């Protein structure tokens, strides 16, 4: 249980001030003090680093607010109740997706830029560490906000897939209705842009688009000519066969869709892990390079040492020889 003694502190500041005034000590206090403080603050390196970091944070905050605001509308009202409120068309949803992605891209670019610039002018180790940590925090924040977005997106994709699955429950009598629903879906498909998840949707959309002209021609063909009963029967059999084929194709395609979604999720996880490992491998690489440098230098040192040793020996030998010569000389000189 902590006790807040800030008030006590301010009180002691006042007492010290009055005491200093009484003693006549000229210490910056009162109005002068605040002015001094202002003065002192401006030449201090306010650091455009921190102001820019705060800008990025406010951007991300705006993105988050935007996403949260429209979240309810986005997820809600997939039912075909024609309520006016809160019903978003798919195009609006696409718009939101696009905007969010552009935003996220600019934010991550800004963070990268800050990262490269942060280490340029600063020499102090602590400040570098501090800035790296700050940038990590901001990235983490961005990731959390992006998670909001991708959750929304995942729910939407899932709903589309489920809807398609449901609409194929009764294949034979519903061919006409399927035509109508698939025609509905073909129209929004070209307007979707291809990012990770919509890639899965494009594939089945294309198949639907291909299937539709077939059905269309088949439907047209049926209405135009007059057919003999045998031909009718033949055509009917062909119809059955085609329907069966289409069904199985659709089943397979549906399954593939689901699997591909899962696989893409897994891919995300894998890329994350691989990127982590890349960082580690980089550091190991650095260490190894440093180690080879050290070994090279070590070798050089050893070589020099050997040389010195040899040189030293030569000098010793020389000195001894000179001493003995001088002794001989002295001896000869003396006698």
């Amino acid at each position: 249980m902590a006790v807040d003694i800030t008030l006590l502190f301010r009180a002691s500041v006042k007492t010290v001030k009055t005491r200093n005034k009484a003693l006549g000590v000229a210490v910056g206090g009162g109005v002068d003090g605040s002015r001094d403080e202002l003065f002192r603050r401006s030449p201090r390196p306010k650091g455009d680093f921190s102001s820019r970091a705060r800008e990025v944070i406010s951007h991300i905050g705006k993105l988050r607010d935007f996403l949260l605001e429209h979240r309810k509308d986005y997820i809600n009202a997939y039912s075909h109740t024609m309520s006016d409120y809160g019903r978003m068309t798919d195009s609006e949803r696409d718009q939101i997706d696009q905007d969010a992605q552009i935003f996220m891209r600019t934010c991550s670019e800004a963070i990268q830029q800050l990262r490269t610039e942060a280490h340029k002018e600063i020499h102090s180790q602590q400040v570098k560490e501090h800035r790296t940590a700050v940038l990590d925090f901001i990235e983490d924040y961005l990731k959390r906000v992006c998670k909001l977005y991708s959750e929304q997106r995942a729910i939407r994709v899932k709903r589309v897939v489920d809807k398609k699955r449901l609409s194929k429950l009764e294949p034979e009598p519903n061919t006409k209705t399927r035509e109508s629903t698939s025609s509905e879906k073909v129209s929004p498909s070209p307007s979707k842009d291809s990012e990770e998840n919509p890639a899965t949707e494009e594939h089945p959309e294309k198949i639907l688009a291909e299937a539709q002209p077939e059905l269309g021609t088949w439907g047209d063909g049926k209405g135009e000519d007059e057919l003999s009963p045998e031909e009718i029967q033949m055509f009917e059999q062909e119809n059955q066969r085609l329907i069966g084929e289409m069904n199985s194709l659709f089943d397979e395609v549906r399954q593939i869709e689901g699997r591909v979604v899962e696989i893409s999720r897994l891919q995300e996880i894998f890329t994350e892990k691989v990127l982590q490992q890349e960082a580690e491998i980089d550091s190991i690489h650095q260490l190894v390079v440093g180690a080879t440098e050290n070994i090279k230098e070590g070798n050089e040192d050893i070589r020099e040492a050997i040389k010195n040793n040899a040189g030293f020996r030569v000098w010793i030998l020389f000195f001894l020889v000179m001493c003995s010569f001088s002794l001989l000389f002295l001896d000869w000189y003396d006698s």
Partner: protein
Amino acid sequence: MATATASSASIRERQTVALKRMLNFNVPHVKNSTGEPVWKVLIYDRFGQDIISPLLSVKELRDMGITLHLLLHSDRDPIPDVPAVYFVMPTEENIDRMCQDLRNQLYESYYLNFISAISRSKLEDIANAALAASAVTQVAKVFDQYLNFITLEDDMFVLCNQNKELVSYRAINRPDITDTEMETVMDTIVDSLFCFFVTLGAVPIIRCSRGTAAEMVAVKLDKKLRENLRDARNSLFTGDTLGAGQFSFQRPLLVLVDRNIDLATPLHHTWTYQALVHDVLDFHLNRVNLEETSGVENSPAGARPKRKNKKSYDLTPVDKFWQKHKGSPFPEVAESVQQELESYRAQEDEVKRLKSIMGLEGEDEGAISMLSDNTAKLTSAVSSLPELLEKKRLIDLHTNVATAVLEHIKARKLDVYFEYEEKIMSKTTLDKSLLDIISDPDAGTPEDKMRLFLIYYISTQQAPSEADLEQYKKALTDAGCNLNPLQYIKQWKAFTKMASAPASYGSTTTKSMGLLSRVMNTGSQFVMEGVKNLVLKQQNLPVTRILDNLMEMKSNPETDDYRYFDPKMLRGNDSSVPRNKNPFQEAIVFVVGGGNYIEYQNLVDYIKGKQGKHILYGCSELFNATQFIKQVKYTFVVCFC
């Protein structure tokens, strides 16, 4: 927090919550997944470091938004636009350094938190410096945190680590101590205990034995609590952290004991995991430092000596294996590590099998349906990978630690010592004579032998005869021991004999499962041949017995004349008659002069059997037998008859 069971929240949680709140600028911490990041810098001194390090890991600090954590007295560079949180003790040097920081304008705003209460004059010093530096508005908040103790476990705390010598056993029991020094020591202890109770949020009922250092502590603590309660405006024990239910029912019992009632337990050889690690390896503040020798190399003469790798491991509450097994006897621990290793390997094989299945998938086209559950399995395998890795790390950690402990046990034959000491302490018949063990050259270090002999000396009812004593002394000096501790123990024994009868240690039996267990154990990775599989039987150490008597209001000649203090009562009276006749639900045992893990484990075992009761264990310092003997060696009495 204002429920009746709040007092049973563990002390560790409370301290962690208090620390997190402090780090969050003293606003209660709320987890918000899409909150904006706020960054700050944490500055602490060595006391603060000791308090924070067992509770919060670096990752948790990061989660709270701390980008840098630095020591107060290191060189720090100015980092603009960052609020700084200080967590220091209000000593002269710390205050000077903080004033210097204010003058150098290192950070943007300052949140000052003092570990224990700061005096008015020092506060004015800071105010002075802040005025001189025109930085008064920068000092955003000043707090007294009252966190001057270190929590090691959920229910165990220690007073301090940095100035251990000030409150060590030796400092308190030194014969040449002066009154003023004693006063300072007592004040330090009482300050920490007071902080502890403020954090706990309860006012205890204090009981202590007469005539010991514990009594002095009790008197002072009672006085301090009483003063604080009197001052109703500023009392620390009212407020929203206390519910109404705290007052009459759940008041805890504080039992203050002195180390001198039981000197055998610190010397005892032990057999439970945590106590062994503390005894045999370098273990403090929940961190073990191991030295691993690198493999044998053919080192040519004159080359550098073999390099030893130092490794340190943190044993934290997150480590589930540690939490489960820290009180188990060592062979159980070895088996459990084996089991964990095998289950981990099984899981690893499972994952590898999935990998091979996925590899085959590409060739078989008709297997799309199989693909579906395999992707699901793969997803679950991938998501469970971090858990698996964590498990592997823990298993490695415990394998290393247990192997190191096992090496020591084998080298010093600690199991033999343990068994023998248990027998001595429970006064069953001894099969081997003491002299044999002492003169046995390869059973343990000289210190082990000294410990054994001291325990024997302490627990015999009558002193051994002079001739025997001489024999023992000779054997001990042959084995290489220093005989100084023996002097001290002699004096202690004489002193306590005057005061009261020496404590008896209760009955215990140890079973040594011989051949069969050895056969079973050779299959396991830890080759435990020769290390007997000793089974611990429940026995109550003296401290536990005293606690039992006081908590259950049992009448016992030993504890009947303990003093009774209740800071909430209006008149401080000296009666030994407890007013409260009901057994207590919560108790705090505090040992003045030093404690150890053996007592802690004993208390934990004791309380396991009782439903709904909680015990907290605290001591002024934590030492193992080696450190204790070192302290006792130099505690001489110049002249004592």
